[in-house]
């Protein structure tokens, strides 16, 4: 994932910090292995459905719920409709990873703008804005995603927006805290003194300098959101057939667990490996960016 090299142009002013962090990260073997594993899963999700001899909807009557075997390219076996599981797992990976990335992007946009505005403006505005976050924080937000999805139909783009729209809260808190801590640093005061407009100060000086903890949180939010999507698909409110995702595959596998356990084990295995990898990367980034925090 690109999260491993978070070097946006905005940080050109302080390259040494990021380069040092990069060096520390590269020494973390678990994190580096996770990056490789994730890249492999990502690449396979993109490429395998393009070149595999079976399509995701090709049903074959001779192979209904066939167990995994090397004959006829059904390496992961087939499902109740005789569709090849391997190609479906990688296709589902496309959807799950895309949802994880897109929802995190939505959460990132909302959370960073909300948090930096609250922290930078401060005072009563900040109080009200963070109070709202507190209230939302204490609610079971999955219920709201379910309401949103119930109301606006089970459209995959809506799932993106609905998950992103409720998962920004922690991001907003982190960004606000960081913003508060740098708001009175000299370089911000000097920008205020030369009369730079506030939105520009936010964009040029505040946001780039709060990115460290945000990057760590992003790598932890992506797997969380993949899980949320799987959860929604599992109860039938997420991705719909003929599209598929790891959550939907797991749900179908769970229904056939006594007769065809491979239908659960393969998608669940890929989901779990992805979760592990993201968590290791997140831990690695935290250690790399905050060497004193250990």
């Amino acid at each position, binding site marked *: 994932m690109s999260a491993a090299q978070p070097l946006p142009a905005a940080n050109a002013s302080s390259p040494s910090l990021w380069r040092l962090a990069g060096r520390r990260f590269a020494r973390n073997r678990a994190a580096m292995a996770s990056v490789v594993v994730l890249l492999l899963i990502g690449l396979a999700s993109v490429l395998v459905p393009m070149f595999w001899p079976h399509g995701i909807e090709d049903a074959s009557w001779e192979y209904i719920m066939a167990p995994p075997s090397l004959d006829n390219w059904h390496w992961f076996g087939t499902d109740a409709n005789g569709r090849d599981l391997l190609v479906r797992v990688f296709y589902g990976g496309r959807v799950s990873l895309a949802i994880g990335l897109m929802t995190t992007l939505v959460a990132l946009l909302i959370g960073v703008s909300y948090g930096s505005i609250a922290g930078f403006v401060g005072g009563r505005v900040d109080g009200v804005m963070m109070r709202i976050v507190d209230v939302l924080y204490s609610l079971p937000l999955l219920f709201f995603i379910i309401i949103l999805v119930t109301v606006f139909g089970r459209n995959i783009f809506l799932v993106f927006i609905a998950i992103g729209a409720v998962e920004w809260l922690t991001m907003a808190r982190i960004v606000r805290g960081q913003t508060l801590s740098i708001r009175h640093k000299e370089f911000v005061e000097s920008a205020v003194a030369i009369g730079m407009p506030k939105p520009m100060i936010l964009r040029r000086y505040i946001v780039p300098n709060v990115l460290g903890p945000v990057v760590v949180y992003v790598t932890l939010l992506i797997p969380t959101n993949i899980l949320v999507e799987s*959860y929604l698909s599992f109860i039938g409110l997420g991705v719909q057939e003929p599209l598929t995702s790891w959550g939907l595959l797991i749900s179908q596998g769970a229904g056939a667990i006594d007769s065809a356990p491979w239908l659960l084990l393969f998608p669940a295995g890929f989901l779990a490996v992805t979760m592990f990898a993201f968590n290791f990367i997140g831990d690695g980034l935290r250690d790399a960016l905050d060497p004193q925090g250990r």
Partner: protein
Amino acid sequence: MIAFTLRRLLVAVPTLFLIGTASFFLMRAAPGGPFDADADLEPQVLANIRASYDLDKPLFEQYLIYLRRALTGDFGPSLVYKDFTVTELIGIGLPVSMRLGAMAMLIALLVGASAGIVAALRQNRLIDHLVMAMAMTGIAIPSFVVAPLLALLFGLYLGLLPVAGWNGGAWRNMVLPVTALALPQIAIIARLMRGGMLEVLRSDFVRTARAKGLGEWRVVSRHALRPALVPLVGYLGPALAGIMTGSLVIELIFNLPGVGRYFVQGALNRDYPLVMGVVVIYAGLIIVLNLLSDLAYAALDPRVRRQYR
């Protein structure tokens, strides 16, 4: 302390009101109605059905009716389970879900906290690595994967426990769902507890306690435990929300007659009153329990208490 409680309650009421209002208008903004499946009905019959559920009135009037009834705990008749009111359905489901959730919470706290403490006391030893590896696994593997695997292993292969069903709440039927529900929370709580304990064990007052010759057990139980519990208490609210949402899939997988199953069915069938009723009741529950956990927070940490006096 009393002022703090009152102030929190003052926030809770408008919050609940907003949740009810938001879910009402969202539900009504939905394209497609609950009676779409009966499209071949005579127009007059359809109109009569709609009228009997007040769906023909102006939106704002429906909202007022809804508010007035909700205040008395009446969320109207369910649109799909035609012989039941929403309140009756929740009344049937809530005891099941509460029992499940309370058991899972209790087990998660006991097991998670003990595992975290043991790991912290043996930092970087084998048992610490073991506990942390298990915690990582618990976080990476979602409950809707663990649950079917548990059912397969203990229900089908070993034949020790029933695969699914409620059976009036017999303990044999509770074991698997409660375990599946508690596992992810055990993992998170163990990590939190370990972190909190490690920090406290490094502090000066623990060193003092050790220096005056107290045994390890007394140091931990009398001096370190209370401050180490503080981060855990802060996590109680999110843990509760996690167990409530987790319980939706667990009830589905194990076919238990709880609120979660009704909620999911309601969402799939566009049963507006049922979905709204569950959301309002659950939000209320969470608000009350969050308040309790905040009070516990204040009771454990004198600094928090002073802040609110």
